[in-house]
């Protein structure tokens, strides 16, 4: 088996439909999780907003395919690198952590499949984009760990926290219970990313800087349009407390928050320009 699998080589059964991220955002069904308003506040995903059930189902499906890719990414990190102390190698203990993450992500896949059925959706009802695994393809193990375990698993903390709140508001104890368990695992995964970033770059500040820049790029990508932020009406709110538990500094969380505000301002300006153009 060769090392460093291409995204296109990810194996799926016939139910899965793969689309680029931008094409997925053109799917009108999950609008309940993105743009329309509910009584309880702006764009936030709440049970009373129009389209909330579809939005929650789409988000759950997105979580499910994200968990598959997280499983695949952690698995590849076990395999893609030699064990050792060289720049291209990874320590034995890091591989053990990634194997542990494999088990956790496999459980998350199982939980997500069950929750998807519980919420009335099925595999393939919504499209899959491969953004998570793309971050897991970085040939530098430090950048891979930082992009996946800090940026994307950090996003997972925010998403699971939001879904847990949604379960609470919707009076769905099964959803709330499962999301809380997955949230605990994600804090562990992000902490792994924080620890390994620190340990592997202790004597190499340039590499640490490159890794943090890569994380910033991934973070920015997922703050698109202010989808994830600290505003009251952000569809997915930054889970500041859990991020702190996972090793993020306040300055890092502030930076993600500011990036999201900026992305939101840019998206709003783009919408206004498009509206003005349409109006002639």
């Amino acid at each position: 088996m060769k090392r460093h699998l291409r995204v296109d080589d990810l194996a799926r059964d016939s139910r899965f439909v793969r689309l680029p991220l931008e094409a997925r955002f053109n799917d009108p069904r999950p609008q309940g999780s993105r743009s329309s308003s509910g009584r309880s506040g702006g764009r936030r995903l709440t049970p009373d907003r129009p389209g909330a059930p579809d939005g929650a189902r789409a988000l759950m499906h997105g979580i499910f395919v994200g968990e598959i890719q997280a499983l695949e990414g952690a698995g590849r990190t076990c395999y893609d690198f030699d064990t050792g102390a060289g720049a291209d190698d990874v320590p034995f203990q890091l591989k053990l952590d990634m194997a542990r993450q494999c088990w956790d992500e496999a459980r998350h896949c199982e939980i997500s499949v069950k929750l998807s059925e519980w919420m009335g959706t099925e595999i393939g009802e919504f499209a899959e984009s491969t953004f998570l695994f793309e971050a897991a393809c970085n040939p530098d193990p430090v950048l891979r760990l930082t992009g996946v375990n800090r940026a994307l698993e950090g996003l997972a903390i925010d998403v699971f926290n939001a879904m847990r709140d949604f379960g609470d508001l919707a009076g769905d104890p099964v959803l709330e219970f499962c999301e809380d368990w997955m949230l605990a695992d994600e804090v562990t995964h992000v902490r792994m990313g924080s620890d390994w970033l620190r340990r592997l770059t202790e004597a190499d500040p340039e590499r640490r800087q490159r890794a943090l820049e890569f994380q910033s790029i991934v973070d920015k990508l997922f703050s698109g349009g202010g989808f994830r932020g600290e505003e009251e009406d952000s569809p997915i709110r930054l889970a500041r407390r859990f991020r702190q538990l996972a090793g993020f500094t306040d300055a890092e969380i502030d930076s993600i928050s500011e990036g999201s505000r900026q992305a939101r301002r840019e998206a709003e300006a783009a919408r206004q320009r498009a509206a003005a153009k349409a109006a002639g």
Partner: protein
Amino acid sequence: MADPKKPRPAFAPWDRRELPGAFDVEETARRVGNYKWVEMRLFEALGGWVATVPELDVKMRLGTHCYKHAWHSELWHKRLPELREMNPERLTLPANSAVEEFMEAITEPEGEDRTLEKLVGVYRVLIPHKIAAYTYHLNNTSTITDAPTIRSLKLILNDEFEDWRDGEMMIQSLIETEEEARRAADRQAQLESILVRAGGIAGPGSIGMPAPEEVTA
């Protein structure tokens, strides 16, 4: 209640553990290093395969099993310094070149149409051989002096039996035609023949029997 001051034997009548064992410290360390090497190659391969198998249930099981074998390798890694090997990497080795060749052959299948070959190699060849070698070790080591290894072996064997059953059931569910049954058998025979040369996962004597060439020599 019995008188607490009354002398009692150090070993209760039901405790039949004995001092003698088949392995000294050095031999135990060698075997443990071989086990760690095999467990490492296995968990790495299972992790790598997750992305290459389209069957969703298999994908998730491989992810789960990946961790179990990683944990086994960690148990062996931690045991080595307790066996006077302060540099565990020195003994983290294949028992011989045939074992290395076997693990190369096991991990060779890659394409998404080769799930059967992947699973047969692990669950019909490697894991049964691991169970055999671990059981031999468990039943022949000193039940008093080598208790830490026994504890690890028992924990690991419990995982191995569960994973063996999982894997065999996945294989049976994937085989739908006689041609596929032959595919599985051919793959098993190909890999078994390498392990015959290797003498088992810990080399000749993995299960106590000498290697065939030693018998005929």
